[in-house]
């Protein structure tokens, strides 16, 4: 299973989760977990997703999510889960 973490950071905006989720559904990317919080007035959301059945390559998903973020005025990042696992788990 190829797992990635999608983060959304920015000023709270109506419909941002909907946009990201729609995009993921359209591309056969399964959401495994979602959590969110507000840090210093900024909306922080993360999703753990499964890319195994994705119809697009990682590179494309990452740039398209980045574009969705820019169009909505928030930052959307997609990173492979390993970097977080390595850093925070022994």
């Amino acid at each position, binding site marked *: 299973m190829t797992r990635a*973490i999608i*983060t959304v*950071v920015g000023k709270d905006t109506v419909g941002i989760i909907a946009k990201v989720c729609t995009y993921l559904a359209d591309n056969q990317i399964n959401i495994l*977990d979602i*959590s*969110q*919080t507000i*840090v210093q007035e900024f909306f*922080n*959301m*993360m999703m*753990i997703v499964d890319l195994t059945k994705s119809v697009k390559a*990682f*590179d494309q998903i*990452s740039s398209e999510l980045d574009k969705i973020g820019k169009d909505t005025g928030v930052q959307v*990042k*997609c*990173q*492979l*889960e*390993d*970097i*977080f*696992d*390595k*850093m*925070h*788990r022994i």
Partner: protein
Amino acid sequence: MINLQEVIETNKMIEQENLDVRTITMGISLLDCADHDLKVTCDKIYKKITTLARDLVQTGEDIAKEFGIPIVNKRISITPISLVGGACCRIPGDYVQIAKTLDRAAKDVGVNILGGYSAIVSKGMTQSDELLIRSIPMALAATERICSSVNVGSTKTGINMDAVRLMGDIIRQTAEATKDRDSVGCTKLVVLCNAPDDNPFMAGAFHGVSEADAIINVGVSGPGVVKYALEQMDESIARKNRSAQGLANFELLCETIKRTAFKITRVGQLVAQEASRRLGVPFGIIDLSLAPTPAIGDSVADILKCIGVEHPGAPGTTAALAMLNDQVKKGGVMASSYVGGLSGAFIPVSEDQGMIDAVEAGALTIEKLEAMTCVCSVGLDMIAIPGDTPATTIAGIIADESAIGMVNQKTTAVRIIPVIGKNVGDTVEYGGLFGHAPIMPVNTFSSQRFVDRGGRIPAPIHSFKN
């Protein structure tokens, strides 16, 4: 499962605290490129480098994108070239031809620096070593991406004082050969003692003869992350005591540095393993280093200030640096399967805004920097000195640094730049990673009789361990 706080912490390190992987360096052995014909040697070298490193830059960029971690440099280190060119080089100009070939290969694969225009002469010099060394000024003036290093001593062999004396001249000649560009050639030339075979950091990187045909070494960085963690530590103590300022004790300080170094190094380990897998080249080592850049917030000097000295150079600086260096190693060692290279905190002057500030404030002198090199990785690094400094004085400085390395069984190095036409009070601007530097005064009393003696200084007594 990873939680949101952990994700926020990692991304904050990357976005706000300048966490990055400083370099993926591919070590390539060129021993099988040696031929008695210069052209054949050059052709073989070009072909081997451009074949093995063809995908290095693209792979680095892919990994950076997928994990969301910047990988600043993609570089190559090669077998010390004096071992490869011995059979075909008759005059220094022949070696310059090899340098130009290396420069072309580096440009064509897209790496910004290639290191290994080097000679290992810690005990004696072969004719080939000496030709190579004498070609360095011409080679560095005629190329863009080549870095050169000469290892003049080791704990096991002592110090080759003939080579030390010669390097005093070579540094001056390199400065002269590039005087129209503020003697920039000297930023790419380093004199080492106890040089490691697997260092991924420039200018001293080369692919030692103890290494495999090709290898991936990774240098991590992140002084900004360490500084931020220490600031947080003090702030949390202040909040706890309800006072304006908090002072964490050394136990807490050390724990924080170790924990941070562990996290930074784990990222390096991940990148190294991925690069190794994708390129089909074995993983060599992680170099656990705090490598500053001139960017604000990416400074080792700032960590020292955070630990509590007003500027680097103030009394206490050496102890603070010793502690920092040790904790970085203790935290990092557990995070990686193989550790090597230089591993420690770097204290270049021109590449660290906090160091530049300290020099300009009058807090930091070459003598204090020398003391600091006893307890951290490497040595007198990226220091601009007056253009009229005699070669014998430069050789004296090299001898001092080499002695520190030899006796303390550690790597030391000298990368100083006598900037032709400039004097104390002037500054020099190199731009990019090399930064800018105020010209620092050098002790003007003569070392001539000492460095002109010739021969070598024997290995210290504690090197006889058999």
